[in-house]
């Protein structure tokens, strides 16, 4: 069976036919997609699935990764935080580090293509390579930029405004830009190790290996150790639940090569956990996909208590596994959860604790939330929908003034 056909049981034959039709329209166009890391983080994960699938459809697509030193990634981490609204210093020296790394990459990254598709702020400066009447350039922003720090956004906007179109994950991220802004949500892959079905035996084996007993309900948050994911707030909510329910908390997260702040956050999480044997703080490598899958499947309730989110794809991962999810009502999370129908949206540590208790007490209601959530993900957040929208995006270039486009 081809890679594409393996999706038919999840999305139906018609969806795959649509992908084939669109791919035929793109024959002969060369596409290069560029980001800042080959592993770790949601962007690399999605590209590692989308690029091979696109090739199977006959799309001529390459994936390039920019290189940068620790100083560059420290600057881009601060840019990331500042775009999320956290106050960060951003001076001339930072700008120069960013520009210098951009110049180095301009000299080495092969951007010869008909469509250049850039992801996130790190490689945004590659637009400097653009020549008049050359390729179409797209900038895909995976970050919540609804309330960015103004000087940092102004710096990026000098680059962003030169693109043909931009892509954001949620409606509230739209900016005042001269080019079209397309909304494309990210997605999960139902066939990846992180999301495929696992047997109970496989789940047991993984949890045994990670020393997490399945003797009581497990409440889990899977995400990078990042302040914006509020892992300390998760521990706080769990502390409020503990007097009423005997349960375990699993905080599982990996690092990413462009995230130097993770170690410091991890230290504060360990401090908050204070050696409690029911709190399991797991540092997982970027390759720990089956482990994450098993932890989510073993969980009774899954949390994503983010303070800011680009999208919060772990929500869709957990919903796809039929789990009730309690998540912060930020970024793209409300697109994935309709409150009290396909999950729970909260704003505070106390509210998160309240709903964890409710779901632990009412398993039938929790199960219904999970079932509705899984159907919502099937329609809107699987890889095939994501790929279809990228193909449409490529076809949109060159006719961005049209709203009904007839393809032959």
């Amino acid at each position, binding site marked *: 069976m081809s890679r594409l056909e393996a999706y038919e049981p999840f999305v*139906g*034959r*018609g*969806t795959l*036919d*649509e992908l084939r*039709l*669109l791919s035929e*329209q793109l024959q002969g166009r060369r596409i290069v997609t560029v980001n800042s890391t080959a592993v770790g983080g949601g962007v690399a994960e999605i590209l590692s699935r989308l690029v091979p699938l696109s090739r199977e459809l006959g799309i001529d697509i390459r994936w390039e990764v920019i290189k940068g030193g620790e100083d560059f990634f420290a600057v881009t981490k601060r840019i990331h935080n500042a775009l999320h609204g956290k106050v960060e210093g951003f001076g001339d020296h930072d700008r120069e580090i960013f520009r210098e790394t951009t110049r180095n990459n301009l000299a080495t990254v092969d951007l010869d293509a008909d469509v250049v598709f850039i992801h996130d702020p790190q490689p945004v400066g590659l637009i400097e390579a653009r020549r008049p009447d050359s390729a179409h350039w797209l900038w895909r922003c995976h970050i919540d930029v*609804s309330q960015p720090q103004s000087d940092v956004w102004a710096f990026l906007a000098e680059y962003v405004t030169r693109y043909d179109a931009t892509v*954001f994950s949620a*409606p*509230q*991220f*739209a*900016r*005042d*830009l001269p080019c*079209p*802004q*397309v*909304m*494309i949500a990210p997605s999960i892959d139902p066939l990846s190790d992180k999301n495929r079905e696992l047997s109970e035996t496989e789940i047991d084996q993984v949890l045994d290996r990670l020393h997490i007993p399945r003797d009581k309900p497990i409440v889990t948050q899977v995400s990078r150790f990042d302040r914006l994911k509020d892992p300390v707030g998760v521990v706080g909510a769990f502390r409020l639940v503990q007097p009423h329910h005997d349960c375990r908390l699993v905080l599982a997260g990996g690092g990413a090569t462009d995230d130097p702040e993770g170690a410091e956050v991890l230290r504060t999480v360990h401090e908050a956990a204070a050696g409690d044997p029911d709190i399991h703080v797991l540092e997982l490598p970027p390759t720990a996909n089956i482990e994450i899958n098993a932890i989510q499947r073993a969980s009774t309730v899954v949390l994503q208590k983010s303070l800011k989110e680009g999208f919060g794809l772990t929500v869709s991962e957990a919903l796809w596994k039929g789990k009730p999810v309690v998540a912060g*009502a*930020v970024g793209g999370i409300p697109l994935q959860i*309709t409150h009290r*129908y396909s999950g729970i949206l909260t704003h505070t540590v106390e509210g998160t604790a309240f709903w964890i208790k409710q779901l632990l007490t009412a398993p039938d209601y929790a199960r219904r939330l999970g079932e*509705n959530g899984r*159907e*919502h993900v099937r*329609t*809107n957040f699987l890889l095939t929908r994501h790929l*279809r*929208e990228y193909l*449409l*995006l490529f*076809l*949109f270039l060159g006719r961005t003034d*049209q*709203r*009904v*486009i*007839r*393809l*032959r």
Partner: protein
Amino acid sequence: MQAMDISAAQAFQFHTSLNLTLLTNRRARDLAELLEHLRAVPGSVIYYHTHHFLVQHQYLSPEPPNDFAYWVTNVLQEDRLGEELAAIDLITFHTIRALRERIVGVIERFLDARRQLRTAPDGEEFHFREAVSFIVPTTLEARDLSEFADGLERIGFGSLSFHVFDARLRLEKGANDFSEWLATMLGERILAQEIARLDPYTYTLDGLRAAMVRLVRRRLQERAR
């Protein structure tokens, strides 16, 4: 049964419509702002907010497929106006322009009797979006009723949505494409009317497809007797 099928002079070519969503950077915090934008936005914005719900929230049907009603009810908590907006019967409109006028009219009447406006909490503003529709011919076509039934069973939701919703409202053809072809090319006027009578806004797309296939299969059985 196959032998009894009448071939159409012109085959039915199944098309599909696949949508890309654009962000407009227009947002409304209260009804006055909502109204101001509703008057100014392109028709493709009105189309998006009255139709995307059908494809994106399959399992919620028969909830109203209308974002304005949803926001007014759930965010502004203006239940009465929300109900009036949800009750706008989309099947009775043949143009986006007429649909926009009705939505605007309902909100205007409400505002005429109101002094105080409720404001959406931070982060829950109404964000206007826009649909770009790509219309693509599929490889499926039908020359008779039997092939038509097979095609209906196979097509994706984008195709169903195109022939039912886009054809009527966005391309202003007046009827859904299926009924038009069945009546004019196969002389199946009664079947065409039966399909046209289905209110597609009250079904999930899967449910709509099943209802149509049932009607076509029943007609095939009648002809086989």
